[in-house]
């Protein structure tokens, strides 16, 4: 059989039309704004110049920031590995009571929009915050521990690791699940055991999955803005970019930094594409029989429970503190709030700003999700079902937003569309929708791609053969069969859009268009009860994201991991 695809060389008018729309979309809403931002880095006084790059590389501040960002990425990746590896191993390879519960709990840290966590973290970890006060009261320490000390580096690393380890866990778990148990059995058969087995069989086979996760974590930590901002750890690239971009004179040096960040992320992106290009989709999608797990002995069960509970417990401290702050009436230098109230939850639904922002967010997210569904399904369809020129390029472009800091895109939109009908001052709605859609498109493409990949192309051919045209086939056969995947991807896109921070902060410049995240941010600026109200809003966001992830997990099952890969 030469190939099981449709007639590949024929670029039908339909395919050409889809490609044209995609080129237009990406050209207008990805490359044009990006170019707009980047050109600023190369032009000083209308003249091409690389002076800003020179200045960037010579400045001790920027050098330190670059080194710190790399360090942050590396250390965070290492830490997430240390947390996630035993966790994934235990959850994939052992059966024990409460496995489902612990597996679900392990994912919970993802539902925290990091800057919401910051409110709680300050309350908990301040030098006279709850933890220290508790330790002081119980006499365990006699001077407050400086949690955020040391310039904030470790604070950032720990918060990021606690936020990101689920992604690493999902990837490693997918990688491990991928290892055919019979391979391990046969290795054991010839006398390999313990570490040797891990080194020679398990590790090489799970390595691609691990590498994919590691790159996501690295890029995330490398470009993360929120967490370092919270910790006032300013010597990292993302914060430097933010500072320069928001600088009164719009310092172009910041754009030089952007170029650098984009180059680094693209290099990593290319690396992972090159070595696992297209392969990992199938590896996970094929769904090996998961019979590799074995019953844990009671001692092992206790150990596993202990390990997983303590990791999740630590990771959930910020969530807990957000819950607490959201019901706080008064909390001043005591371990727990001295007075409680549920008033803030009521206020959310009375207050104009919050109510409007919930509506706005729903509307914006629904619209962006619809765009994502249309584009994501179209892209995934083209990638899996058609062969056309620059196919790999389309694949890479669709995944590119994963590697772009949201900040960069938002600034590109602001400056690139200023004065056009898309100007955010006229209405930020179109650009907000598009920004959300572009940023979350990779998840949708991933999900749909997996769906198409699992589905035999002959099912569509059979329908054509029965006399159904391409559109009817898409509607009656293809869509129903990839619907679960599309729904899962849509829910992820939707909930991440609801909690999108950087685009919202920058693009939503009129109060009547505030989405939830900007409302939270704005509420935090409220002087006294701001944090409490913001926490209540944050809780709402967390509940929403938790429900969506739960649903997605139910639909996608083990394949969930592949949504978080480069």
């Amino acid at each position, binding site marked *: 059989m030469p190939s099981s695809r449709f007639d590949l060389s024929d670029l039908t008018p339909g395919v050409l039309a889809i490609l044209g729309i995609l080129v237009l979309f990406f050209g207008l809403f990805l490359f044009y704004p990006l170019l707009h931002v980047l050109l600023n880095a190369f032009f000083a006084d209308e003249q091409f110049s690389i002076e800003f790059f020179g200045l960037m590389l010579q*400045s001790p501040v920027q050098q330190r920031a670059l080194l710190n960002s790399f360090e942050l990425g590396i250390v965070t990746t290492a830490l997430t590995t240390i947390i996630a590896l035993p966790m994934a191993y235990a959850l994939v390879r052992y059966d024990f009571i409460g496995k489902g519960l612990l597996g679900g709990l392990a994912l919970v840290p993802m539902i925290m929009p990091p800057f919401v966590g910051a409110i709680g973290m300050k309350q908990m970890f*301040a*030098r006279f915050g709850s933890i220290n006060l508790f330790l002081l009261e119980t006499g365990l320490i006699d001077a407050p521990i400086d949690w955020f000390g040391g310039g904030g580096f470790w604070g950032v690393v720990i918060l990021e690791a606690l936020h990101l380890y689920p992604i690493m866990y999902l990837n490693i778990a997918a990688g491990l699940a991928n290892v055919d148990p019979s391979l391990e059995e046969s290795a054991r058969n010839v006398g390999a055991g313990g570490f040797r087995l891990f080194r020679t069989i398990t590790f*090489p086979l799970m390595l691609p999955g691990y590498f994919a996760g590691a790159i996501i974590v690295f890029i995330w930590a490398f470009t993360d803005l929120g967490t370092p901002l919270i910790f*006032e750890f300013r010597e990292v690239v993302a914060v430097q970019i933010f*500072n320069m971009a928001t600088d009164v*004179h719009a310092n172009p040096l910041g754009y030089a930094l952007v170029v650098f960040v984009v180059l680094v992320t693209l290099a990593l992106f290319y690396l992972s594409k090159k070595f696992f290009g297209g392969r990992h989709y199938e590896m996970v999608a094929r769904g090996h029989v998961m019979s590799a797990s074995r019953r844990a002995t009671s001692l092992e069960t206790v150990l596993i429970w202990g390990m997983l509970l303590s990791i999740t417990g630590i990771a959930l401290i910020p969530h807990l503190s957000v819950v607490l702050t959201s019901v706080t009436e008064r909390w001043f230098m005591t371990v727990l709030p001295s007075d409680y109230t549920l008033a803030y939850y009521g206020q959310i639904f009375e207050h104009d700003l919050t109510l409007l922002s919930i509506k706005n967010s729903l509307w914006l997210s629904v619209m962006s999700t619809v765009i994502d569904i249309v584009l994501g399904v179209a892209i995934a369809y083209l990638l899996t079902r058609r062969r056309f020129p620059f196919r790999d390029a389309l694949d890479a472009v669709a995944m590119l937003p994963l590697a772009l800091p949201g900040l960069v895109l938002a600034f590109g939109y602001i400056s690139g569309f200023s*004065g056009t009908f898309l100007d955010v001052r006229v209405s930020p709605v179109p650009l907000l929708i598009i920004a959300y859609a572009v940023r979350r498109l990779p998840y949708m493409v991933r999900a749909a791609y997996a769906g198409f990949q699992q589905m035999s192309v002959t099912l569509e051919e059979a329908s054509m053969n029965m006399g159904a045209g391409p559109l009817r086939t898409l509607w009656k056969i293809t869509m129903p069969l990839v619907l679960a995947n599309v729904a899962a991807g849509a829910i992820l896109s939707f909930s991440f859009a609801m909690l999108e921070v950087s685009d919202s902060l920058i693009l939503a410049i009129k109060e009547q268009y505030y989405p939830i995240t900007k409302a939270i941010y704005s509420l935090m600026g409220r002087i006294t009860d701001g944090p409490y109200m913001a926490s209540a809003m944050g809780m709402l966001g967390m509940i929403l994201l938790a429900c969506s992830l739960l649903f997605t997990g139910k639909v996608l099952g083990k394949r969930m991991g592949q949504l978080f890969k480069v």
Partner: protein
Amino acid sequence: MNLRFIRSFIRCFLFAGVFCQAGGPAAVSAQDRLVIVSPHWEGIRYEFTRGFDAFYRAETGRTAEIEWMDVGGTSEIIRFIKSEYTGKPGGIGIDMMFGGGSDPFMELARLDLLAPYRLPETLLSKLPAEVGGYPVYDAEYRWYGATMAGFGIVYNKRVAELVELPLPETWEDLTDPRLYSWVGGADPRKSGSAHVPFEIILQVYGWERGWQIITALGANARGFANTGSQVPKDVTSGEVAYGMAIDFYAWAQINAVGPDMIGYTMPDNLTILNPDGISILKGAPNMAVAQSFLRYILSEAGQRLWMQKPGPPGGPEKFQLNRFTVLPHLYQRIDPAHTSVTFNPFTWESSFVYDAEKGAARRHIVDDMIGVFVIDAHAALQRRWRRAMEEGDLASVLPALGSVPITEEESLALGDQWRDQAFRNRTLLAWSRLAAEKYGSGAAGWAGARYMLFSGSGLVLAGMVLYLWRLKRKSG
């Protein structure tokens, strides 16, 4: 997964979206509109929107909708307005700017981006010309002080007690090495309210001594937040014990947790009260509405919102704003039980006269200098500071640490060149090298670890790639 379930789910989802849109954003139904860009917090926006609605209805019989624009803090607003006017010199579709202190309004006035409006005599006559030597409104009526802000030190009494530290009286007290790491700060490049105390320090102590104080205070600082409002919050949470802050942030915290816990002081003769402005922007599309809003803000009805507690008639409905009114007679007229402000700035005496022109002219240079010498180099500065503390020769080291490469005159002259980004960045680079020289890189212990970290991870990455490459080759 049940297919029908997913289908109906998606249907609900789309329905929800359409539903939200129907009742959703931008349901502008009022007859007139007004676009205001403002860094003011939500409570102020809410109360003045509500108040103006009634005022405008009474004045014109028409309804007006206020569109509040939020493009960030004061610095971002200024940048936004300036860049917008370069593209559209005739008008940028925004009517007013409200809040942000007084320097930004002076800057915009100097750039001729404000539309003058002379208030009716009945209102103008009640406004004092100046407070503490500072004009309350522009002589050419391009901006008015809508309220006032004082600058002082907020502190956490319980923390100070627990760690046995003194309570500060002056800016200089914040340089006390015992306060090391207990001082909170904000970045003046980001926050207008963070900028003012530094400029005050430079003016009251003089350029050279001023920089020494800023450097020492910066060395004592825990960190530098992006917004001025973060400082009193950090003080309240006990992360730091002291911070420089605008009065009303401090009042809000004191009102929330009690005067026995949080204190606020305005150093005698060392600080200012300055107006917090409002103005109409050049080419305002809704000029008449904007002028009406200005009349409202400076009327007694508008001014009461700043000071009164929510509830009693004439005051705010929901939010307590804790701000000064600029109408002196209101301090007597408002029932003391109904006011949230206990201090009358018009009775406040200060021998210090703030030079607003000077402050505005060198604002960005001073901010960048603080940025380079104190904030960006904070880690090195702190290390040097700690070493000096251990060696006990702070007094002899401080003049060198606090020295700056330019004189006061040069700082005032640099203003124009500062707009040339290449020049500015070259200068900043030279300064940051100077900072590294002054404080020493001092990363000796760290360099080894960093070297190991990078070479180690480089090796791991290379190994992994090589390994995978081989694997890939083998599998064809």
